[in-house]
């Protein structure tokens, strides 16, 4: 078939090119990975009417609907209007003009999150409400950024492999008199976390340097001697990525920052990106953008106007450890095996 299609334009519209010429896969955003279950009917309608009947649970928690023919994209976009109004504007208070044209940009990717403390016994934060606040800050912007929110340092959300990875952490308080020295916290910290707790003189002592803020101690404490400080704290990892060249885990940029600080930092991402890219948005991993600017410059721009809370820690410098795929000399062909 003779096609003449502006692939780039469709990509920005959240339709991804298929290997079958003229077919596309729609990626529907679901900030925080949660929508009302009733929208499955919307997804199903699109998949059955215009797609090939399949739904891919997208790698970034999008609803991905493959097999949509080019000629149907206009109809799909028109149908999407209600979903975008509900999910982006009503739920996230995103400042955008919703029309029959579908998604205005693919720039900032879907903000991912684990289920968070609305359900999970490990989580320290409400990941969904944070994801929605972050969506408002980065969408709709053409500047590319990938963010994921983990409710706790278990990091089921793989915050470690995002441009910005947010991890919910807790400052712990210990009530000496309530402690019965059962050592549940000591055992749990040793097996789940950073073994910062030990028993001394019949009570618990803590090596505060290395607490990751997971709050496992509070979760297992039988007497409520360990409790979380009600203020929520966050760890911010930056520069994590997968990819064909040199994937790497993100590194800690900020530790023990409050939500106010976190949102101010995220709010600076567009200005930083615009500065580095000379106001020309293009597809580039956030980590590469930080590399281009250099960490010092990144830090200066991203913390511009941000008033750090007293507990906050900021990375002096970053020591990346990348996997250089060109240097896999330790991987050898298996010889002598039939």
């Amino acid at each position, binding site marked *: 078939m003779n096609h003449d299609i502006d692939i780039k334009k469709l990509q920005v519209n959240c339709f991804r090119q298929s290997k079958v010429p003229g077919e596309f896969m729609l990626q529907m955003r679901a900030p925080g990975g949660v929508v009302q279950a009733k929208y499955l009917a919307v997804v199903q309608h699109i998949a059955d009417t215009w797609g090939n009947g399949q739904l891919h649970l997208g790698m970034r928690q999008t609803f991905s609907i493959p097999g949509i023919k080019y000629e149907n994209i206009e109809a799909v976009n028109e149908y999407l209007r209600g979903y975008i109004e509900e999910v982006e504007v009503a739920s996230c208070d995103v400042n955008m003009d919703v029309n029959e044209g579908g998604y205005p940009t693919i720039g900032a990717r879907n903000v991912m999150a684990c289920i968070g*403390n609305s359900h999970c*016994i490990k*989580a*320290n*934060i*409400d990941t969904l409400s944070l994801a929605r606040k972050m969506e408002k800050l980065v969408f709709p912007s053409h500047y590319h950024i990938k963010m994921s929110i983990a*409710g706790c340092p278990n990091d089921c959300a793989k915050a470690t492999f995002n441009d910005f990875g947010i991890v*919910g952490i*807790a400052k712990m308080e210990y009530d*000496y*008199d*309530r*402690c*019965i*020295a*059962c050592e*549940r916290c000591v055992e749990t910290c040793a097996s789940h976390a950073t073994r910062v707790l030990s028993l*001394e*003189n*019949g009570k618990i002592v803590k090596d505060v340097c290395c607490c990751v803020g997971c*709050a496992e101690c*509070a*979760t*297992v*404490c*039988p*007497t*409520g001697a360990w*409790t*979380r400080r*009600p203020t929520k704290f966050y760890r911010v990892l930056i520069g994590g990525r997968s990819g064909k060249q040199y994937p790497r885990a993100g590194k800690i940029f900020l530790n023990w920052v409050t939500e106010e600080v976190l949102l101010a930092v995220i709010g600076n991402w567009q200005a930083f990106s615009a500065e580095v890219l000379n106001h020309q948005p293009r597809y580039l991993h956030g980590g590469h953008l930080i590399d281009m600017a250099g960490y010092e410059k990144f830090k200066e721009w991203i913390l511009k106007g941000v008033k750090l809370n007293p507990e906050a820690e900021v990375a002096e410098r970053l020591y990346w450890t990348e996997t250089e795929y060109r240097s896999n000399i330790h991987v050898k062909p298996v010889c002598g095996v039939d």
Partner: protein
Amino acid sequence: MAYRLSLSRMDELLEKMRESYTIYAPMRFEKRGRYSDTDLVRYDKIRSVRDIVYDEKSHFSPKEVIHPITQALFHFTEFEYRESEVDERPVLVFVRPCDIHGIQRLDTMFLENGDAADPYYKRLRDKVKFVLMECGKGWDTCFCVSMGTNRTEDYSLAVRFAGEELLLEVKDPSFRPLFASEKTADFRPEFVSANRLTVRLPEIKSRDVLEKVHALPLWESYDTRCLSCGACTAACVSCSCFTTSDVAYSENGRSGDRRRVWASCLHKDFTVMAGGHGFRKTPGERMRFRTLHKVYDFRARFGGADMCVGCGRCTDRCPQLISFAATLNRLSGEVDRLNAEAAAATGVSV
């Protein structure tokens, strides 16, 4: 006599009561619960009746007031020691009917178990007066009616919260002058007469059946379910176990405290002795001990009531969702079977 008081008027009177009493009640500690964004409801000193959480069951019991989690007995230096002291002021505690029964069980354990009354318990217990809080309908884990602990007359004051007002029965004559000019009301506390849960208690009728109860496979089911964390015994109003130790100060090892701290029969080191020998090595064995202690051993030793008062806090607090009521009902079913088998063997009908 009974009175109808607005909460703000009650606060004025509470302020006067606080001149002579230390007043404890269940209070909400926001976002201090086991899981994120959950609250903790436990006892502490109140300043206002609005501090009192009356429409929820507290996670921890009022026993903390009389049997503190950590209590120094005496302080020692190299050549001398000094006994610890407690605040001399009398104490008022807001409690439920089951809690009053629970504290009676603690009285039995600390004051009537053996020849000597425990002076550290007694010095606090003697100062305590109860303010009974009505339970309304009770809660879904309560089984006070099954345990016979739903009613009590052992209180000084009784209260029903009703929005911006409360009804207060003043039973203890020493409080009457304080309320002399208040508006009277016709009020007596109502007690829960039926719980959603009904618990059947095991009737272990012979030594032979008791031994068979020990060997029941049902205990093994707790080997994988129970974490041995002791959250149940920490929440329990009638669990009394503690461990005593000398703690030498790290700055000067020749001085320190002798203190006692709550212990739990669920903890794996509870029965460990010199040489590493222990009586109850598995979570199931420890669960068996706790269960029988609560509904058999205590009564076998002291007569009268069972140690468990059916407050259900152990069920509320178990992170593994083990229901003590369900455990008791399972056990009772097994005991029925064992009793029937024993009767069949001897030819006596039950």
